[in-house]
């Protein structure tokens, strides 16, 4: 496997206007601050965190939907921030985006055929008939009826719309797809269908995913490696298994313990680490470690010194002065058994 994407010291600050009488740009929202990670070809990197942690901003910076303030984004070794004109357009074919809201991300006045073929039109690929055939082929791949090509988005359910968004993202044979909360608007049974579809497509087309979500179970299910973010900072980065069985960062630990598991006996026996208070404002983030205001093990140094993201175990990075593993019992599962049919 080779490296497809490398993000180095990515920083995005949004300036905020202040003052009611004389508006001026003063402070800024530090949405993403010095975030670095790499994604291998064919793997899925999960970006997880609560609202306002900067995971979506990171995703949008990666494909230059928004311009980063600082840092480098290397796609196949080339800095995409330097891309202009033709280069940028070529890059856009390689990297696609699946949006969270299946209702807002499809133009209600376009038919499904127009929506899904638009990438081909923009990039001037193929003739009209070829495009049509290709749209039908991809609708079929994502599990929709190709005959619905002339229907409008409102005629589809949420899960089907998300499939339309996926088909649109696939049209240009991209290498990288940023999935921004692709299943969070869907019901559980539909969510599982879309997750399975994303898995199948990855195998079939050799896709690389950056999968952004707040649902830890979903992220665990789909990701090879996972990055945990908090208030614009990367807190922990490791392969999914060591993160879920032995998280090092107190934030990851409390995040994992906060998700209720659907098993009453187990859930009621679990120790929850309840964090106090809310996430502080990213306009004026806490000094030192940004998590120190809510951290159950914070000491003096945490408010003074920013902890570096360091290797705490092979391939396992954590940004905490006092990083220590907190083993979580995870039950191994027997192989799925074929259901008994009556």
């Amino acid at each position, binding site marked *: 496997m080779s490296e497809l994407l490398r993000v180095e010291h990515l920083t995005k600050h949004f300036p905020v206007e202040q003052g009611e009488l004389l508006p001026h740009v003063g402070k800024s929202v530090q949405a993403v601050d010095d975030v670095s990670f790499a994604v291998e070809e064919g793997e899925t990197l999960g970006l997880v965190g*609560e*609202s306002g942690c900067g995971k979506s901003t990171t995703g949008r910076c990666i494909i230059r939907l928004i311009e980063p303030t600082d840092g480098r984004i290397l796609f196949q070794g080339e800095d995409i921030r330097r891309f202009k004109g033709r280069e940028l357009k070529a890059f856009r074919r390689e990297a696609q985006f699946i949006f969270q809201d299946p209702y807002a991300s499809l133009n209600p006045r376009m038919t499904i055929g127009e929506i899904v073929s638009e990438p081909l039109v923009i990039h001037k690929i193929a003739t009209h008939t070829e495009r049509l055939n290709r749209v039908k082929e991809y609708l079929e791949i994502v599990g929709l009826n190709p005959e619905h090509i002339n229907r409008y988005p409102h005629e589809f*359910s949420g*899960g*089907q719309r998300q499939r339309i968004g996926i088909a649109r993202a696939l049209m240009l044979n991209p290498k990288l797809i940023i999935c921004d909360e692709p299943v969070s608007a869907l*019901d*559980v*049974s*539909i*969510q*599982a*269908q879309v*997750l*399975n579809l994303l*898995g199948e497509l990855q195998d079939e087309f050799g896709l690389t995913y950056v999968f952004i979500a*707040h649902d*830890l*179970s*979903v992220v*665990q*299910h*789909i990701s090879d490696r996972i990055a945990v973010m908090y208030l614009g900072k990367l807190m922990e980065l490791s392969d999914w*298994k060591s993160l*879920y*069985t032995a998280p090092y960062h107190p934030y990851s630990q*409390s*995040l*994992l*313990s*906060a*998700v*209720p*598991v*659907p*098993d*009453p*006996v*187990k*859930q*009621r026996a679990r120790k*929850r680490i*309840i*964090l*106090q*208070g*809310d*996430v502080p404002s990213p306009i004026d983030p806490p000094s030192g470690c940004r998590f120190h205001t809510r951290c159950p093990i914070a000491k003096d140094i945490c408010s003074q010194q920013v902890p570096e993201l360091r290797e705490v175990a092979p391939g396992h990075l954590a940004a905490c002065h006092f990083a220590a593993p907190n083993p979580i019992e*995870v*039950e*191994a*599962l*027997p192989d*799925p*058994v*074929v*259901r*008994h*049919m*009556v």
Partner: protein
Amino acid sequence: MSGELLRVDDLKMYFYTRDGVVKAVDGVSYTLNKGETLGVVGESGSGKSVTALTMMRLVPMPPGKVESGDVFFKGESILSMKEDKIRAIRGDRIAMIFQDPMTSLNPVYRIGHQLAEPLVIHKGMSWKDAEARAVELLEMVGIPNPASRARDYPHQFSGGMRQRAMIAMALACDPDILIADEPTTALDVTIQAQIIELMQELQERTGTAIIMITHDLGVVADVANNVMVMYAGRPVEYGTTEQVFYNPRHPYTWGLMDSLPRQDLTKKGALSPIDGQPPSLVDVPTGCAFHPRCPYAKDVCKTRNPELVMLEKGHSSACLFAGDSDFVRKSAVSTGRSE
């Protein structure tokens, strides 16, 4: 636990729309006792919220129409109560928390004023006393600087704080029943954990019965004594939390549980989703509403509408085959309990 607080009896709420009759709630029955928590689980459009709104008499009629059934609060029929009587109960004896704390708080009134309002209306307090009580309530739900925060407007609160304020408002009059409609869905997990813990604490202190409407089986596993699983407006399974989680007896419940990615289990690989999508409530399939998506469906399922049948004490399922001893789910998910 003693004393039946609420009894829902074969409730049917239909909506008469231009597109046809929407059978939003189609035969729901259950009882709720003092201090108990009932989890109502189902996907969107399964009728879980409309059931709650109906018992609060908050469904606009028309287009809504109660086709049959009734809801009894302490033995008295809610659906045939006079308007002023239900207004005395609503917000006082039965309170509700909604999913979206932004749209359920009034943006042009201060938080303290909104919290005081039920006290003035139901308890006859003066505005001054009620607003002082509102500050105490905010403190009780863990809002820092409650006195100054009471003078804030909803937009100055974060999502978690707004939901806390909603809970404070719902609990202001010490209700007998708290209906929580997806109270944590819009919140982050660490805030969800805070809110759930808060609700549990308050329940222990006040003995309020809770109806927890959610799609999150994890939340139900955490808080509920009893669980009702709904599909297409009908209850498909009802039982204690243990019964429903460890011995589910309806293929839809099986499907729901197998659809969930589980962070507490190491299995990777494909999930087993339920095929297809939930039916339109205008055009509910004949027979068992779940049959087009059910991997076990037989011909009889297309024609016969299964009743909720008691299988053992407290546990019932609306599947024609639920009683068969060889009708078992070999699940991919272990039960976490040694049998």
